[in-house]
């Protein structure tokens, strides 16, 4: 723990588990044995040893609540301990100072850490004082040895001391302390020797350590008292199991006589007397000794097995990304108020880090599509979050929408000094869902290309469609995935909207191919198979039906949910192909027409058969010509069958013609029907 918030997280987590255990113990007080009542505290001990939030899950969303509170409190302070933009994570369940304190919260943590040290010192001093007042009592050792022999229990050293009741201490070299000048019944010695046998001294030591670590949490002090009481109750049970008839009643009378005895609560000791009220409860338990339902060992174990995972790891608490409030409401906020809102919401967004690669890409893609700062914050490192925060803080005026922060940051559109602010505003159109291309695992994580189509209307309300690609890198940090845009392409506008079809949109993303297989040119026509790997969230979202370009429903990305699916998984990640035809001898003044047919095979099996839907010649789009080369890409579809078999050859033909001034067509070049064979194994692996 390195700041006060981490301590609060740890102590509240422990308190929550303790409260749950107390509720269960109350429900099963007279139903489950003292062994269960005491043994179940092992869950608390394990929970105390594990830093809160380590599993990434929790019984209640304490991390989210504390993150928001931290953001609100620390926004006005300059803490040396707290990273306002970092996650609320613990690496150890004890305090550790990392720098000189600066802020109020820093000093609070220093005060807490000092309290831990003082509490440890106080307990240690108490123990030393107790030990200093003990005197060896070899003359009483014979009685202790007799009891130990009778019940086959360990034999400690024997001493005398001031406290009115017997106790054991010193876990490493145990000592049984008897009250000076008072006779002690054998059953009392039996009780203390049973503490020794079952390691209760170590438990007491652990409780003292936890008291020190959580010295300012009175609830946990009460809980640790309860642990000690349950240890005594279990020890009573163990004593009664070894006694018969009248001896049990004697034991109850002995306990009653101890009601007014003071007991020493120091580390590494146990004491039979633990207060009048507890004595009364223990005597009632003795009276109930034979009435606990017997044969319940299996269910006791089952209940612990059900309880332990929930207490130790919690459950995945789905927290929704905060909603971006409406512009009018935001515009009314003062800068300070807006800062508070942003810090709180960014803290919540940070606690929603996607747990999967697909979830991170979905979050990033929808951040771009929806211009949502919080979606972006959920997958960004602290530096980017701070930049986002500053941008939103600076630009919250009536003329600037939340969404345009993205344009301003240059992530969406490459920074173009020739574009005026006004032009950029006009470009605030709508984005279609995104496509994930060429997801590949790297040494540090993953890389991918995220492709977007972008529609907008210009000043004359003419529609335009562009596409652009974000090259991103993904890294994993504390169990959550971050997405960093490495390169953003300039939007490339489509010239022919009539032939645009989302279904085959991937053919537009030239330059972002996984591989290119060039075929031998014929009659001046160059051909190649371009391969991209497309990762889909649902196999329903992209079809490659023969001659059915309208079969696709939405084609891209994750249209299944409006908000990011932080636990999303890819349904498939398969190679898709485009047939590229190039004619270097084209003229800029001519209008060209094309015709194609192709069949795709995996071995003997024909997977796809398609031809130009017009069944004749289709006009080549105006942007097909550039730098003296006419180029067109024909979407082929999936290059992998459902059983995983890869396509190994394509049979195709292509004819290029030129449109004559009189409306006729003149042939220009021709690729006769032929097959090209290839091996995609290495390409797509």
């Amino acid at each position, binding site marked *: 723990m390195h700041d006060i918030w981490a301590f609060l997280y740890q102590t509240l987590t422990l308190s929550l588990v303790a409260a*749950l255990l107390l*509720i*269960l113990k109350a*429900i*099963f007080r*007279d*139903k*489950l044995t003292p062994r269960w009542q005491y043994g179940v505290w092992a869950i608390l001990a394990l929970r105390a040893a594990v830093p809160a939030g380590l599993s990434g899950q929790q*019984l*209640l*969303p304490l991390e989210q609540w504390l993150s928001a509170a931290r953001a609100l409190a620390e926004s006005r302070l300059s803490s040396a301990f707290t990273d306002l933009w970092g996650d609320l994570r613990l690496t150890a369940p004890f305090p550790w100072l990392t720098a000189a304190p600066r802020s109020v919260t820093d000093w609070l943590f220093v005060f807490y850490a000092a309290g831990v040290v003082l509490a440890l010192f106080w307990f240690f001093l108490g123990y030393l004082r107790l030990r200093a007042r003990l005197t060896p009592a070899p003359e009483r050792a014979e009685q202790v040895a007799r009891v130990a022999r009778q019940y086959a229990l360990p034999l400690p050293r024997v001493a005398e001391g001031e406290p009115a009741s017997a106790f054991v201490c010193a876990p490493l070299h145990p000592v049984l302390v008897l009250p000076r000048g008072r006779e002690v019944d054998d059953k009392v010695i039996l009780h203390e020797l049973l503490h020794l046998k079952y390691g209760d001294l170590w438990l007491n030591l652990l409780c003292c350590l936890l008291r020190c670590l959580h010295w300012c949490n009175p609830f946990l002090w009460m809980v640790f008292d309860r642990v000690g009481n349950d240890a005594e109750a279990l020890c009573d049970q163990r004593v009664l199991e070894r006694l018969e008839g009248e001896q049990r009643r004697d034991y109850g009378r002995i306990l009653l006589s101890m009601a007014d005895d003071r007991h020493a609560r120091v580390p590494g000791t146990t004491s039979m007397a633990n207060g009048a009220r507890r004595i009364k409860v223990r005597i009632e338990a003795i009276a109930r000794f034979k*009435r606990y*339902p*017997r*044969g*319940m060992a*299996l*269910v006791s174990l*089952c*209940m612990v*097995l*059900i*309880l332990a*995972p*929930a207490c130790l*790891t919690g*459950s995945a*608490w*789905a927290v929704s990304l905060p909603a971006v409030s409406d512009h009018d409401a935001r515009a009314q906020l003062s800068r300070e108020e807006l800062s508070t809102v942003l810090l709180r919401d960014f803290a919540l967004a940070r606690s929603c880090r996607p747990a999967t690669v697909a979830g991170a890409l979905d979050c990033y893609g929808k951040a771009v599509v929806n211009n949502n700062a919080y979606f972006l914050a959920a997958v960004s490192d602290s530096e980017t979050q701070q930049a986002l925060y500053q941008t939103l803080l600076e630009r919250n005026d009536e003329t600037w929408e939340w969404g345009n922060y993205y344009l301003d940051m240059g992530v969406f559109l490459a920074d173009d000094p020739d574009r005026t602010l006004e032009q950029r505003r006009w470009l605030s159109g709508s984005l279609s869902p995104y496509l994930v291309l060429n997801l590949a695992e790297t040494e540090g994580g993953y890389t991918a290309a995220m492709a977007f189509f972008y529609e907008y209307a210009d000043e004359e309300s003419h529609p335009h469609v562009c596409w652009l690609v974000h090259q991103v890198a993904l890294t994993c940090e504390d169990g959550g995935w971050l997405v960093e845009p490495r390169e953003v392409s300039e939007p490339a506008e489509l010239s022919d909207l009539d032939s645009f079809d989302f279904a085959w949109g991937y053919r537009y993303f030239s330059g972002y191919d996984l591989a290119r297989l060039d075929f031998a040119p014929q009659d001046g026509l160059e051909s190649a198979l371009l391969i991209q790997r497309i990762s889909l969230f649902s196999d329903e979202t992209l079809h490659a039906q023969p001659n059915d370009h309208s079969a696709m429903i939405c084609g891209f990305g994750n249209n299944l949910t409006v908000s990011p699916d932080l636990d999303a998984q890819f349904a498939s990640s398969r190679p898709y192909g485009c047939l590229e035809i190039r004619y270097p001898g084209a003229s800029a003044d001519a209008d060209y027409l094309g015709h194609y047919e192709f069949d795709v095979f995996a071995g003997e099996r024909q997977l796809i058969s398609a031809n130009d839907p017009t069944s004749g010649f289709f006009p080549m789009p105006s942007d097909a010509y550039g730098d003296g080369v006419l180029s067109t890409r024909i979407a082929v579809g999936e290059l992998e069958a459902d059983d995983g078999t890869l396509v190994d050859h394509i049979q195709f033909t292509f004819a290029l013609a030129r449109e004559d001034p009189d409306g006729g067509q003149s042939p220009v070049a021709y690729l006769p029907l032929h097959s090209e064979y290839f091996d995609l194994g290495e390409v797509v692996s």
Partner: protein
Amino acid sequence: MSPERPIRPVLTQLAWGYVLIYLNFNLGPVDILPDFVGWFLLADGVGKLGEELPSLPLLRPLALGLGVWALADWLLPLEGQLFTVPLLIVRLVRVYFDFQLFHDLAGLAARVQPPGRRLDRSMTQLRNTQAVLDTLLSLPVLYPVLLDYSAVTWLVLAAALVLIVWTLYCLFALRNLFPADGSQDTSAPADAP
């Protein structure tokens, strides 16, 4: 059990309580065989069996609590992660309740069953199987197995169905060990085996 308070109807009440709990018949969003009625029948039944099985009334508050929870869920579905902790408590109470009830009923069966009949053993095995299955289904580590392998899911569903049938069989079989006129003397040591 005294002739004035025959045991057979109480066992019938327990059996029908479980029928209501296990079987759901929905008309739209409403379950017309509500679980809470089943739990209140069980609460009443275990109270009435106190004379016969002294530790059984310890279950009455648990049954009442489960009934209240079921009633609340029937009125307004208690969904969402805010109920994670209460649902955990309910699950633990349920596991304990079923276990102890069948533990004690097995003891009763052992006292009254005719020679050669092993209804007590069947109830003990049912008790253990139910507890183990409930525990396994609660372990988070097994969730991916259940989600990824539909065969495992079907196996679990089949096991649950078998347990339901087995439970109802044992309860009605125990009831049938008692004559309808309540004449059987079931006095015996109160401790369960």
